[in-house]
């Protein structure tokens, strides 16, 4: 008998009725083709990531010029940074994911966004523009590693105050 406090239920078996296994199913070749389709979207990605960077720039400009609005703007800044972080690596721009990660970390960690925090956001923005303008794909080699190390150090310093 089953304990009433924990009931196990067998869900309807719809998936197995709908999913078959055959030679025309998803195999390694189809997966590779799907990855190539994503790679084919790289041009579109470069357009929309520029839109995201511009959005981030506009929020940053407001945060710099309107100190009283900074706390409210942090959430919007975080959302855009989070999108950038979540997309870069899918299109071969892992460096954008890394920069977005550190910016998210900064925005999540600071209690109050002071001028030093604003400057740090500016550094991340500059780094993102550089990556896209220079076409720094992947991890960006030594230059990319140095860039990420620098941003990490800045974020570390600000979040440990």
């Amino acid at each position: 008998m089953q304990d009433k406090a924990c009931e196990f239920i067998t869900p309807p078996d719809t998936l197995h009725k709908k999913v078959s296994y055959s030679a025309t199913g998803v195999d390694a070749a189809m997966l590779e083709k799907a990855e190539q389709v994503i790679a084919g979207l790289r041009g579109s990605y470069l357009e929309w990531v520029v839109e995201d960077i511009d959005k981030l720039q506009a929020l940053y400009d407001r945060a710099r010029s309107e100190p009283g609005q900074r706390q409210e703007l942090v959430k919007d800044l975080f959302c855009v940074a989070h999108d950038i972080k979540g997309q870069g690596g899918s299109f071969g721009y892992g460096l954008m994911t890394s920069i977005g990660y550190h910016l998210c970390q900064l925005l999540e960690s600071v209690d109050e966004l002071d001028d030093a925090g604003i400057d740090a956001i500016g550094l991340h923005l500059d780094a993102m523009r550089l990556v896209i303008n220079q076409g720094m794909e992947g991890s960006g080699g030594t230059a990319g590693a140095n860039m990420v190390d620098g941003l990490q150090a800045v974020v570390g310093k600000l979040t440990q105050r």
Partner: protein
Amino acid sequence: MGGYNLDRLNFLVVDDNKHMRALVKTILHALGAKNVLEAADGADAFKELRHYPADIIICDWNMSPLDGLDFVRLVRTGKDSPNPFAAIIMLTGHTEMHRVIEARDAGVHEFLAKPISAKALYSRIRSIVEKPRPFVRTATYFGPDRRRKQTDFKGKERRKSDGDRSPDGAEGGGLSQAEIEALLNG
């Protein structure tokens, strides 16, 4: 050589970012899926479920007014939920351990870290197909068995490799996809 046919499955992609929705949809189509519906947030998605029998829901975490976690809870335990047993893949950049646990405890089947790849997404779909789990109802939880014990899949073992790694740039701090799997399977 072969694989699973996804052409008869109904997918619902829920993300407030139209580019992300486009990416997921493109991947699903490239994998042979024909029925892919999009929704921009949890509330929209819940409305869609009333007339669209989704087999697999792929949802983002950060959305408003209803975020991914609230949406999952609504699907699982909402009194008017049209499909409480739907398979759900949580797709998010939030990969900290407490977030993964939170998503699991809301009732997601699988957790996929952004940035995504076709291989990583298919790997999660395959896991749902190959490892069906009973649902559990307790005073505080309704959803797939969190212990992830293998149940009644009697098909031939066809997995070859993990294929789970996120594309380059998956950054430290949060958990990697492999670490998430280890955590959820533990």
